[in-house]
């Protein structure tokens, strides 16, 4: 099975390990993520003002290109997923806006593509039981905090991947991989997002709250599905450690790296060396490697 795949700007460079571990894991499970022949940046933010149609032209172009390659489109980055799925809804349901946007991008796209997050592909198209059956290196005993962030879940009526307040999709995947999911209070809170550009202090506070909340609930590892969450959390590690008594850091990895690990892929292909907090001591302690 081939599923058209949109990597987005960040996964092609900064978050290469997110992209590569997902692609190789997909092959291991039995499907191929076929990168779109032509794609552009999604704009990295869905405009909250409904009259801002020009901001929808970039994601609409992506969706239109995807429509030429199949009826589904999968993506990994939470923000790309949010922007593409919400734009698709506008293109499908709002005839007037569709006509204007199609005029901008010189396409005739009608919102027919089904936008799925990689987690949805695993859960709904493949099934977590099949993922579990493919596990060769179970992550037994690793207490793992799934950090959802905001864009994967909200707004619920547009995203619909899971309950916006009490999601379970990540935890269920972690269970299938043999890990021990840890629910922590800040798992659906924001990391500080684009404030990384001009307000590092707020980002440190928010990201610090996420990490200390996870560790306080017993997590030894955090998994994310967003390169910006990953960046903000990792970048804040040292400052948070210096301000928080008893906190010494926690490894933060992409959920696909955990998936690749459980599926038995060679450790050196998973890109762990790019992480700020080394995950290897934890894996050695747990006897995973």
């Amino acid at each position, binding site marked *: 099975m081939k599923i058209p795949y949109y990597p987005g700007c960040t996964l092609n460079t900064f978050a290469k390990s997110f992209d590569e571990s997902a692609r190789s894991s997909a092959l291991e499970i039995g499907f191929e993520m076929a990168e779109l022949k032509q794609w552009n940046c999604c704009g*990295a933010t869905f405009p909250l*003002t409904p009259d801002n149609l020009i901001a929808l032209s970039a994601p609409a172009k992506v969706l239109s290109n995807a429509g030429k390659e199949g009826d589904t489109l999968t993506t990994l980055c939470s923000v790309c997923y949010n922007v593409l799925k919400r734009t698709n809804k506008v293109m499908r349901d709002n005839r007037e806006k569709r006509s204007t946007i199609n005029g901008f991008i010189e396409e005739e796209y009608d919102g027919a593509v089904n936008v799925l997050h990689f987690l949805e592909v695993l859960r709904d198209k493949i099934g977590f039981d099949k993922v579990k059956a493919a596990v060769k290196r179970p992550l037994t005993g690793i207490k793992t905090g799934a950090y959802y962030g905001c864009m994967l879940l909200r707004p619920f009526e547009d995203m619909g991947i899971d309950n916006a307040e009490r999601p379970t999709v990540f935890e269920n995947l972690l269970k299938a991989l043999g890990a021990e999911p840890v629910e922590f209070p800040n798992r659906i809170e924001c990391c500080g997002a684009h404030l990384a550009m001009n307000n590092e202090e707020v980002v440190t506070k*928010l990201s610090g709250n996420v990490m200390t909340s996870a560790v306080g609930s017993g997590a030894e590892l955090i998994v994310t599905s967003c390169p910006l969450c990953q960046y903000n959390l990792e970048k804040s590690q040292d400052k948070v450690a210096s301000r928080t008594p008893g906190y010494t850091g926690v490894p933060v990895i992409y959920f696909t790296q955990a998936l690749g690990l459980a599926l038995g892929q060679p450790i050196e292909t998973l890109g762990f060396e790019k992480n700020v907090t080394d995950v290897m001591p934890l894996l050695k302690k747990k006897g995973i490697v």
Partner: protein
Amino acid sequence: MKIKLAKEEIESASIHQLQRISGEDLKKCYQCGNCSGGCPVSFEMDIAPSQVMRFLQLGKIEEVMKANSMWVCVGCLQCYSRCPKGCSVAAVLEGLRQTVLRKGEDFEKIKEIPIPFLEKAPQQAIVCGFRKLVS
């Protein structure tokens, strides 16, 4: 705080414009405060999300424009997610940002963005930051 209310302010062109741009009906808010409680950045805001709504209901848009609230909002939609009336303060704050940015006025000067950030941050952060803070 003592404020003087005026019908002209409550029904001013700026308030109407904000409602049109944001797509939100300011009157829907009944001040339960869920948004301010759930907002991860309200501690940093001069005026908390629910207070922004109240100021705007009373036509005090100038007070809100002077505050940092709109530039601190991360757009995480926690306010909207928890609002019993279905209001999006995030959309209202974006509407306020857009009224500034659409005049060509930058909140963040591109030249002042630290080079290490531009070199090391994921593209996503840069694109998103530009969309929210630069005209």
